[in-house]
């Protein structure tokens, strides 16, 4: 059950940040509340001050800024699954958003909230890492941008300082030779394992590869060993199999109720192979 708290309604990022700084550990940023309210109800955390970010205008916009697609942190999963702009530029991400949890969670839950909560089984984090997205954090002191890799520190822990809020998710637009895919294996409410692959092709050869693994470690991670196997190689079954095996080896999962470490490593290899095979058929910039 929820203990008592106040709700504050800032109208700028700076005002929100000031409130968070003022109340310190007693305050939390509040957007969709899909994870926050749950842990508050269970008594795992107690906050006497919720800073409602939804009263800050402009934080749920999607738009193109130069060479990047910029997504506001308060864009809900529902908004993203329906966004024509997103479907035009990154249909794989729109599809991913459509598959998160259920329609009610998608209606309230935000991309920013999902990323900042840093649940290890989070879907978007894996894809954003493979894509090479960056996150903009804002406070009364200003803004800073960091790559997704540097954002996730541990289970439920990110690089966001308590007085910062996420203000933008930036996805660089990539050439049409880029292919991507997102694969996941789900038996429970949250997926057991997720793999995202982003390949840049040149003349039938993999010019560069970015692979991210999610759900099988405290934070999503790049499978750099597997990426190395793919670089400068042709689109080839054996190449894919070798990269998949490497990704499985590199994953360092723990045995838990989702499955044994051995099985999760195997799943990573399977999902990697499938992601690579599917990526070939999925131009990043075409409406699927």
């Amino acid at each position, binding site marked *: 059950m*929820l203990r008592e708290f106040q709700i504050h309604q800032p109208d700028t990022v700076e005002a929100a940040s000031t409130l968070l700084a003022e109340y310190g550990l007693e305050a939390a940023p509040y957007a969709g509340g899909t994870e926050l309210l749950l842990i508050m109800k269970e008594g795992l955390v107690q906050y006497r001050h919720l800073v409602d970010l939804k009263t800050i205008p402009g934080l749920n916009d999607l738009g193109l800024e130069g060479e990047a697609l910029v997504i506001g942190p308060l864009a809900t999963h529902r908004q993203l699954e329906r966004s024509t702009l997103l479907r035009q530029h990154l249909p794989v991400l729109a599809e991913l958003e459509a598959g998160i949890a259920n329609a009610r969670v998608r209606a309230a839950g935000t991309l920013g909230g999902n990323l900042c909560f840093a649940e290890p089984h989070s879907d978007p984090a894996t894809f954003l890492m493979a894509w090479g997205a960056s996150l903009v954090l804002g406070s009364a002191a200003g803004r800073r941008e960091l790559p997704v890799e540097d954002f996730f520190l541990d289970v439920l822990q990110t690089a966001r300082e308590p007085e910062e809020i996420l203000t933008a998710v930036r996805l660089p637009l990539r050439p049409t030779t880029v292919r991507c895919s997102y694969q996941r*294996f789900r*038996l*429970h409410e*949250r997926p057991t394992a997720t793999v995202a692959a982003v390949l840049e092709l040149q003349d039938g050869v993999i010019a560069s590869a970015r692979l991210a693994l999610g759900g099988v470690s405290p934070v999503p991670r790049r499978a750099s060993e597997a990426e190395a196997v793919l670089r400068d190689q042709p689109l080839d079954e054996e190449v894919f199999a070798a990269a998949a095996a490497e990704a499985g080896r590199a994953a360092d999962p723990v045995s838990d*109720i989702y*499955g044994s470490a051995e*099985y999760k490593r*195997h799943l990573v290899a399977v999902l990697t192979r499938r992601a690579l095979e599917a990526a070939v058929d999925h131009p990043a910039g075409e409406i699927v």
Partner: protein
Amino acid sequence: MTEQTVGVGANATRVDAEEKVNGKARFAGDLVLPGMLHGKVLRSPLPHARITRIDTAQAQALTGVVAVLTGQDIQDLSSPRYGHAIKDRPIVAVDVVRFAGEPVAAVAAVDGATADEALGLIEVEYSDLPLVDTLDKALADGAPRLHEVESLQLGLFHGLGGFQPYDNICYYHKIRQADDGLEPAFERAAIVVQGEYTFPAVYQYAMETHTVIAAWEGKSLNVWASCQHPYLVRAELADLFDLRPSQVRVIVPYLGGGFGSKSYTKMEPITAALARKAGRPVRIANRVDESMVTTRRHNMKCRMRTGATAEGRLVAREVMFWLDTGAYADNGPRVVATAADAAPGPYRWEHVWVDGWGVYTNRPPAGSYRAFGAAHLQWIGESQVDEVARRAGLDRLVIREQNLLRPGEQVRPGGKPLDADLVSDVRKLAAALDWGSPKPPGVGRGVSVGLLAAGAHPVSSAVVRLEADGTAALLVSSTEMGQGVRTVLSQLVSQEIALPIDRIRVPGGDTWMTPYDRSTGASRSTTIAGMAAHRAALDVRDQLLHMAGQVWNVSPNHLSLRAAAVWKGEEFLPYPELFKRYFGLAGGEIVGTGRVQPELGEGSYAAGPYFWEVCLGGAEVEVDADTGRVHVRRLVSVADVGQAVNPRLIEAQEMGATLQGLGNALFEEMIFSDGQLLNGTLLDYHIPTTEDMPDAFDSVLAENEDGPGPYGLKGVGEGALAAVPAAIANALADLGIHLTEMPFTPERVWRAMQRDPMNAIPLTPDRRHHKRMNQHGREY
């Protein structure tokens, strides 16, 4: 007069459908009493410990807290332990906690938030006791004992003989048939299949959690409870609180699902005790994670051996199984007995040896779940029959047709002979599955047939009140938990008194008003409560004919009932008109009663069951070789119902049971470690969704009028839960994937595909427990 009477065989619309779709249907959590307090329960975090100190002073002092209950508050009761089979359960822990989740205290406050806050202010100190959290540990020589079993009394409704618990064994059951020939038979047998199997605990997950309101009126106790068996709960509450049963009133609104999870007594005693201390009505509503440690299905280890001739004739079956009943017995003994009944399967054997034990462990208590016993054993026995078929070179349907019992043959010594035409049912299944047709590559097909002892103790009564306005009330204490009992019983009544069912109202169970029914479960309501309702309706019918006979001055034999009127040739009197003529005013009433009871002195477990419920199903599956995920293409369930009162509601029950069976087979599993439930929320325990549905499902009805109910009907609704997982197991075996541990998760299937098929573990005849039985000189 143009309304149609809706009787037996009609797909009548549910009488409760409208209020369930418009949000007006009331469940226990929707009811409010004046002055009602909100109750919350403090539960032990430890699975086995002594309570060394409990301090509730701070909690009591919190504004808005009216009462805090601990074990001290029940010391005035002469018998503060309950349990319908074994009275081993204290209302709230007194000195020892035996499972993680056991209630240690309870708070009643003006609102839930205050009660919740008060829980955090109760100080409890524990000192660990040795952990006995698994079957192996509980059965080990010298294992610490959970209970001082010598001091335990059998409960009011044990019903299985005078077995006295010992060590950590709460119950033992055996079946023997020509057992001195068992070993020689196995030695001679050309085909012997043996294995060890593991069956998981699952959570029934009725979507409405256990919810109880208790209110004392002087020395009388009123309870509104989400319970399936109001009369049994009444008896136990009366016993606990030193009352006469008639001083306890149990009222049952709609249940948001039951499936056995709300059978017998669950949260009623603690709610009543808290209300007693508070001096005001109290409602306690479990959260889902609380309900998951209130009841669950028994997990099980089993060893089974099947012997057959080279031609596939089944000869000998030996089974030993251990059911983990958790810290308190609940319905454990009955589950053991029913599982023993299901262990041989519906086959003709020369030799049968079954031993079953119910074992106490430091885990939450296990109780009833749909098709218990049969769900536990059918998949194992049927997998061995399939293996015999493979080794004998026989089609898996042919081996069954050859070995299945025929109607009238003995199922178990002393018990009711088989009352179903299983061979004909199997042929229906084969047709629905298109058994002989070529299978696409990578597709496995399997079937399974079994029996579930159904009916429980057959005592039930009903009253039909026909009123002067031509409407009737059917008073029964069957619980409407979704199965459609109010509708089906209305149809039985409408059949006899020619009244449309929308003129028959069926209020919920209320022990002050609705007459005695033993329970709602064991597939007994349409058959047994239905027979009572049928007899009550016949009584009303007789009275109507008699009254009309007097009014018309003719013999009742010349009269009939049709379309809510009495008819003499072309002349008719609608009931209200008949009443006016007979009673002389627009008033009066006809009351009909009906009752079912066993033969004098009968109704025992040993002579039963009341009928054998048929558990018959088929499956077609495919497996993703990469991940081991099983894809179910098709499921078929055969419902052998004798006579279908409402075919569409039967089909609806079959659909629900089938999907529960699929969930049980493929992914549902409560995972314990050191007595702690690791996946106690719906985030970590997956309930089947629309995406888990099979591609196709067929429900087949068999109506052979061979049941003990009205028109030869018999119960249905559980069989699929035993048959579907068994059929899936056999469909996987058809693909060379042999699993001895359920659920068949992707990981287990994947691992099975990595190793050799059917690497059976030799059965070591562990007769320790038999020796102990002989030492105590008890023969059972």
